[in-house]
């Protein structure tokens, strides 16, 4: 009997400590954060196109500037706060990717250049690059076969 009570108390404790997700609120926050980041990207894109750069190069400038901004904000310890509020809104844009590269590099610098920074910098970027490249490779292979076979 005592044991049952203990278990019950423990379950209540776990319930109390587990953060409650309020999905609509979190989604709204993600929507606003992600939207703002994309709008900033759009302003860079528009500026580059106004300067007469072609589409691909403008896209490159947009990524580069957003990544730079994100790394600076990560270094100043501001990006984690944005991510805490914005959730997926700060994670999903390319700024989240840059944050996932810079944050472990800074955090693990004490473990050395190679095993610390060198390895940990790829903690999240590694899987993203691996599976992104692999997926596009498979699709490219299928596309190549399709072209040879004359389907596409």
């Amino acid at each position, binding site marked *: 009997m005592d044991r049952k009570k203990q278990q019950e108390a423990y379950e209540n404790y776990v319930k109390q400590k587990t953060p409650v997700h309020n999905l609509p609120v*979190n989604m709204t926050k993600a929507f606003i954060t992600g939207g703002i*980041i994309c709008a900033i990207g759009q302003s860079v894109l528009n500026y580059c196109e106004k300067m007469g750069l072609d589409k691909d190069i403008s896209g490159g400038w947009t990524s580069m500037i957003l990544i730079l901004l994100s790394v600076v904000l990560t270094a100043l310890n501001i990006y984690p706060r944005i991510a805490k509020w914005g959730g997926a809104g700060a994670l999903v844009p390319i700024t989240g*990717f840059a944050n996932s590269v810079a944050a472990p590099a800074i955090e693990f610098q004490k473990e050395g250049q190679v095993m610390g920074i060198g390895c940990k910098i790829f903690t999240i970027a590694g899987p993203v690059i691996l599976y992104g490249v692999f997926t596009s490779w498979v699709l490219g292979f299928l596309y190549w076969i399709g072209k040879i076979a004359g389907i596409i």
Partner: protein
Amino acid sequence: MDYINAFWVGGLICALSQILLDRTKLMPGRVMVLLVCSGAILGALHIYQPIQDYAGAGASVPLAGFGNLLWKGVKEAVDKEGFIGIFLGGFKASAVGICAALVFGYLASLICEPKMKK
């Protein structure tokens, strides 16, 4: 107008990803991988490019746009170089993003001290 389109499409992609984060056991890293892969697949199915033409940075800034970029690079390289293009195009197209993240990230690790987590 293009700002509004970028805002709501980009916001929507993030809001949908929030569902994955909150309602499933997927970790942030997995959500990012999932987005890049689905972006590449949607790109190959000719679905993502029309969205990107409509939303501009709203579709290219989220990681799904990174996937689409990888696919576009591979496709263009295959059109131009044939078989070897499959190996060439992805990294070529994504070079700016990956290089910028690595270089700036490394520089930040040289300049900054690790912060204590509160």
